[in-house]
């Protein structure tokens, strides 16, 4: 893509999210989200292959529906309460509608069906932007509406954790697996959003670190299918050690950093006396651990001389700058002992 257009799109992406962050009026919030959507559409379609165009079209339809619903809900709220402040949503009707519209925007269950299809059609970098940057603005808005009834969040969250785990079970395409992983992690964030927004912030930061390192590892070896993971040992051997650790961290295993958000969220849930919910959420996250484990089996644990499972592709020189990957991988693996420091930084 031409550099000027590319930079214009990236700047627009940043502009959209920043506008939503800075807004207190429904129109401005909605405008920021629309700018985000419109900026990423050309990025998704840059490949000009039919699959990418299909993904772009699906994404556009879903996001347009969600934005229209969001605008409608904002206007209804203004009609009912007489003012446009996004923090003042006392009526259940409007706050539920806003929540569902934003849930559709980020791909929470049961409004998640578009996510794996769209992710599959994108290249890995755009998929990374979709699963990390595009979630920030809607999550911020969900926090801002300050719902007094946490039931819908609990329902959305628990369903997302279960769907995100169960849906990824028989996937072999890596991008679809990453989409389901995104759904599951967003479920954890939404679950805790009404009880402790700083913990949701912690979850999304740790999730961005982990996803970034995983996407970067896949970008480095240009793998998009489980079968092509099995030749990583020949291309970049160090990835065969770091990627399973990143995957297990995504699954939430101690002593890796991915355990930190789950631990803190479970602690908050038990403080709110929601133990059965906490148990269900914790056990549902074992589903996603299963397919992360399967990925690490394919990549590392069946390495030759035991069982070579794939044919060797062309080995090209890696062209990416690996510094971000190194930094994010290190934090994904080693950040758990920093939990007290991180928790003290969270505003409570």
């Amino acid at each position, binding site marked *: 893509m031409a550099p000027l257009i590319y930079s214009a799109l990236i700047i627009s992406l940043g502009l959209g999210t920043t506008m939503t962050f800075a807004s207190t009026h429904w129109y401005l919030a909605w405008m920021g989200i629309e700018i985000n959507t419109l900026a990423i559409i050309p990025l998704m379609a840059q490949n000009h292959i039919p699959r990418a165009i299909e993904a772009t079209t699906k994404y556009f339809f879903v996001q347009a529906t969600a934005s229209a619903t969001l605008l409608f809900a904002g206007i209804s709220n203004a009609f009912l309460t007489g003012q446009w402040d996004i923090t003042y949503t006392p009526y259940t009707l409007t706050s539920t509608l806003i929540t569902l519209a934003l849930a559709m925007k980020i791909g929470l269950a049961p409004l998640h069906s578009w996510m794996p299809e769209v992710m599959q059609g994108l290249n890995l970098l755009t998929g990374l932007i979709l699963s990390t940057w595009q979630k920030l603005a809607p999550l911020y808005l969900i926090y801002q509406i300050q719902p007094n009834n946490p039931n819908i969040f609990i329902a959305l969250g628990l369903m997302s954790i279960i769907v995100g785990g169960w849906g990824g079970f028989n996937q072999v395409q890596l991008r679809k697996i990453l989409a389901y992983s995104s759904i599951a992690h967003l479920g954890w964030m939404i679950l805790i959003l009404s009880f402790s927004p700083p913990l949701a912030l912690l979850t999304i930061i740790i999730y961005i670190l982990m996803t970034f390192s995983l996407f970067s590892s896949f970008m480095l070896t240009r793998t998009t299918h489980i079968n092509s993971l099995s030749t990583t040992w020949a291309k970049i051997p160090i990835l065969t050690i770091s990627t399973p650790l990143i995957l297990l961290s995504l699954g939430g295993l*101690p002593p890796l950093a991915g355990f930190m958000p789950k631990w803190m969220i*479970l602690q908050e849930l038990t403080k709110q006396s929601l133990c059965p919910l906490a148990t269900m959420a914790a056990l549902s996250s074992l589903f996603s651990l299963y397919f992360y484990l399967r990925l690490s089996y394919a990549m590392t644990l069946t390495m030759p001389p035991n069982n070579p499972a794939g044919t060797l592709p062309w080995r090209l020189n890696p062209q990416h700058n690996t510094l971000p990957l190194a930094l994010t991988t290190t934090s994904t693996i080693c950040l758990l002992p920093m939990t007290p420091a991180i928790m003290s930084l969270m505003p409570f």
Partner: protein
Amino acid sequence: MLKILIPSILLLPSTWLTPQKYLWTTTLSYSLLIASASLMWLATPSETGWSFLNCLMASDPISTPLLVLTCWLLPLMVLASQNHLMLEPINRQRTFISLLISLQIFLILAFSATELIMFYIMFEATLIPTLIIITRWGNQMERLNAGTYFLFYTLAGSLPLLIALLLLQNSTGTLSFFTIPYLPSTCSTPWAHKMWWTACLLAFLIKMPLYGAHLWLPKAHVEAPIAGSMILAAVLLKLGGYGMMRILIILDPLTKELSYPFIILALWGVIMTGSICLRQTDLKALIAYSSVSHMGLVAAGILIQTPWAFTGALILMIAHGLTSSALFCLANTNYERTHSRTMILARGLQTLLPLTAVWWFIATLANLALPPLPNLMGELMIITSLFNWSMWTLILTGLGTLITAGYSLYMFLMTQHGQLPHHLISLNPPHSREHLLLTLHLMPLLLLILKPELIWGWNA
């Protein structure tokens, strides 16, 4: 405490920086040095029970024998793995040894943890190196299934444990071992209290393993390489026992009613798994089921919570750790020579390998709890305290002892006595390394006859 932990952590860089020629020598000698230094923990004169304290780590008479066993096992694992790793690239040898060392670090931190969440995190942390050892260096295709069973059985039990611990922390404000025994018991609705009780114990019962949730163990033990089998049998199962001992203090008084099904299941498991052993064709599976059998006795002993039972459980844990690990090493000597675990393919070995037959004899006698070995002391104390708790358990435990003797003798007679099969015309003689390995396993067991107070726990 740090005198042992920091050298263990620094074993990791030394593994990676040692030249290839000296890798195994270096790791073996340094880990032996750390193991001998760890014997200092056995001198625990403190009256409060806790010694070698700092804010985060401490050792008391229950954790000390397990800590020393952990540190003792690392040189043994290095010694045992040397042969089958010799043909691999050097970096993979280093990775394997690093996994063993990281297991030791996590285990030291787990056994010396003074806070329950620290214990939990280290308990879970031991899963990852063990998983990698089993699924990467195991030898058969079934190892992937074994790794999945291992990980998911343990996690399904330990996630409720995490929630139970967080609940406890919310109601009592602390989870430190120093203060937990003195806290008032947390009572809520009867149903919630029962659920919380189960959640606290389930993870440890699955880890022990209890008979109904034991399916992961034969898979994991059989598919693991020798170092994996050793660490699993000797220490990782004892993590479950140790966790149960620590957490039962706070679970009173509900334990008196709720522990019944688990005690029955454990004792029934002793008999069932013993009977399975009598019909096994796979040598490693036999030893694995024998582990389940012994651990069932330990679980029953811990759950009745009397002083003799705790002492017996601790002694049996240590003795079984050494014995089981020795048996796995012996099975591995067979495996390295015939590349098969089937027992009928390697019979009559007393003719071919008479020196190894001596070790088989001693290990078998230890497994069937011959006096005066500590195995008998542990079993006898558990059986006696179970009899005191209810006299009907004598039927189950007596039958269990009989079946244990039966399958241990079956294993010995099958592998050692009788005629050599026709296809075995020559096997490599035992290496000095293998003799050293078995000496280092069985000598502490024999020496413990002379001073069993070291592994008695609180009744010292």
